[in-house]
Structures are given as C-alpha cells and as structure tokens.
C-alpha cells in the first residue's frame, strides 16, 4: 500500500504499531500528508476542547441518586434478591399454606363417625319411625338413642370372627333440617282461629 493511502487509517488509529512508525517516517518527507494530518488533528483538538466546556447541570445526577437506594453495607445492588428476602418469601408461603390447610380441615365434612356412639343398643328401632338401613351378613345396623342426636350406625367386623366392630358410617335417623317456622306459625294461627 502506498504510504499516502494510509493517512485515513492513521488518523482513525487503525494502524499497527509498526505501520504507525513507518507512516510517521513518511510524514517527515511528505508535505501533503503532514499538512492533512495537522489539519485533522487540529480539528479534533478544537472539537474536544469545545465539548469539554459543556458540563451537565449540577442537579442532573441528584435525582437518580435519590431514586436509587444504594446498599448501605457490602456491594450487593439494591435490585438483586438477597437471601433475607428469600427467607421472607418462604415464611410467607408457609404461613399461607398452613392457613389453607387449617381452613380445609375446619370446613371439611366429617368423614369418621363420632366416637361418642360407641355404646349402642342393638336390634332396636328408633322411636320416631325414621327409615332403617338394611342390614346384611357383612354389616350390622345399630341404632343409637342415648345421645342428643339419635343416629343409625353401620358396623363392620374388625377381623374375621372377632367380637369388635368398626364404625364405618353414621347418619342421623332424624333429618337435620331447620325448624319449620312457617308451618308452626300456621298451626298456631289455625289453633287461634
């Protein structure tokens, strides 16, 4: 490459150290390249010094400093999740799941019959004439009337030939409905008339 053609690369700083030295030697002998280089370097200096006078207003950097909360200790940036925040999230998740579990347990329908009905009288029908569950060879139906809320229980033998029974289902012999206020009121009205 002709030395004069390297002028642009020289000005752009694109030459290798060896090429740079060779071109600077060429500059000593080539008046045109030297003048061009001086003009360009002078222009760059003028641009640099002109822009260097421009300074940002003093309040520009204040706002971000106020907005960004710098970490007080260490070098962890504010927006990076810290172990403490992870633990906090874990604790919150545990509390919420505990709440959900307790609510489910509290509101869930009772699956197992009440153990208060362990003492029963067998072979008797409920006094109020409620429907009776069918007994079979594998299950035994008993009626419980010694409690505030009579129920019929289905019992299944615990093991083959043993005396004990396990309560598998209990349901009321008296329907659990709300008091029939409308009918009772009408009855009272009829009686009054």
């Amino acid at each position, binding site marked *: 490459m002709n030395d004069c053609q390297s002028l642009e690369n020289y000005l752009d700083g694109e030459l290798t150290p060896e090429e740079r030295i060779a071109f600077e030697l060429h500059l000593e002998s080539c008046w045109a390249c030297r003048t061009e280089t001086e003009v360009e370097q002078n222009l760059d200096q003028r641009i640099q010094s*002109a822009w260097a006078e421009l300074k940002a207003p003093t309040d520009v950097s204040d706002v971000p400093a106020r907005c960004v909360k710098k970490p007080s200790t260490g*070098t962890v940036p504010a927006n990076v999740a810290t172990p403490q925040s992870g633990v906090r999230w874990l604790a919150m998740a545990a509390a919420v799941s505990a709440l959900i579990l307790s609510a489910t347990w509290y509101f869930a329908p009772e699956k197992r019959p009440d153990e208060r009905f362990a003492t029963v009288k067998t072979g008797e029908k409920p006094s109020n004439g409620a429907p009776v569950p069918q007994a079979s060879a594998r299950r035994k139906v008993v009626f419980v009337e010694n409690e505030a809320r009579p129920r019929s229980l289905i019992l299944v033998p615990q093991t083959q030939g043993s005396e004990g029974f396990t309560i598998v289902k209990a349901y009321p012999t008296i329907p659990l409905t709300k008091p029939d206020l409308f009918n009772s009121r009408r009855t009272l009205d009829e009686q009054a008339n």
Partner: protein
Amino acid sequence: MTARRDVQIDFEKYVNNVFRFALSLSNDWHIAEDLTQECLLRAHQRQHQLQSAEGARPWMFRIVLNLWKDRLKKKRIKATDALDMNMFGRDWSPEEALMQRESCQQIVQLMQSLPDQQRSVLYLSSVEQFSIREIAGLIKSSENSVKANLSIARKTLRKKLVRQVKQQESPIE
C-alpha cells in the same frame, strides 16, 4: 453471579460525558438532561448486568442511545436542527461565559448541523476517543459504515469551518 455483584461503579463520574453525548444526539438541552437522568437511573438499576468497571462508559453510552431511540419511536420527536446556544454554559459566571462561549459555540453549532449518524460518530471518535470498532459495536453498525460516516463528517465540518472563517474575514460579501 458473585463476581458481578462485586462491581461497584461510580456512575456519576461519567455524567458530563453522558450529558454531552445526549446533547449531541438530541440537540436539545432539556431532552439531554432527561436522557442523562434516565441513563443514570437505569445504570444504577441494572448495575448487575455490567461485567467490569472498564465497560461502564460505553455501556452508559449504549443506554443513552437506546433511550434516545425509544423516544424517537414513541413520541415521534426529531432532533432539533439548531442548538439553543443561550443555554450554553448557563452554570458559568458571566466572565467565564463571555470568554468561552464564543470559541465553543462555533464548533459545537457547526457539528450539530451535521446529519444524526455523522454527528454521533464524529462525537464518539473525536470527543470520547472511541476506536472505530468500539463505535461500530456501540451504534450497532459495520466498521466500514462508521469509517465512511466519520470521513464524510470530518470533511463536511472542515468545509463549514473554512466557509465560516471566510465569512468572518469578509463580512460585507
């Protein structure tokens, strides 16, 4: 991850550089201030993305450039043609302003009259002393395109300077 967290950079020391670059892009003092503030805020917020302290300056320039492009897209604004030189050196004392305004504003004004691409390339090369490769990476352009833009910008600026000097020497013509 731990290596990234250890990077703690004082972004405020690049405020003037960022402001100047924002001004060279937008040609508007108020927009340049906004861009600088937004850049500083974003730099603080995304500090963990920065691999090393050496890369902070070009990284901030990249942020400013992206912010400026976003503004151009969303608000459909354009860089103003002429820079309001009354805002130039408003923090200076009256003596300072009188001494320095004349010399600075001439070249800055001429430079700001160049097309956007040429102006930013010339600024990054002449003022910030970035290499061609660094500029190409920063503005996401090819090295050849940067070289061409830089060459045209220099030639145009020289022509304009010569014309202005001639006008000053013979104001009657």
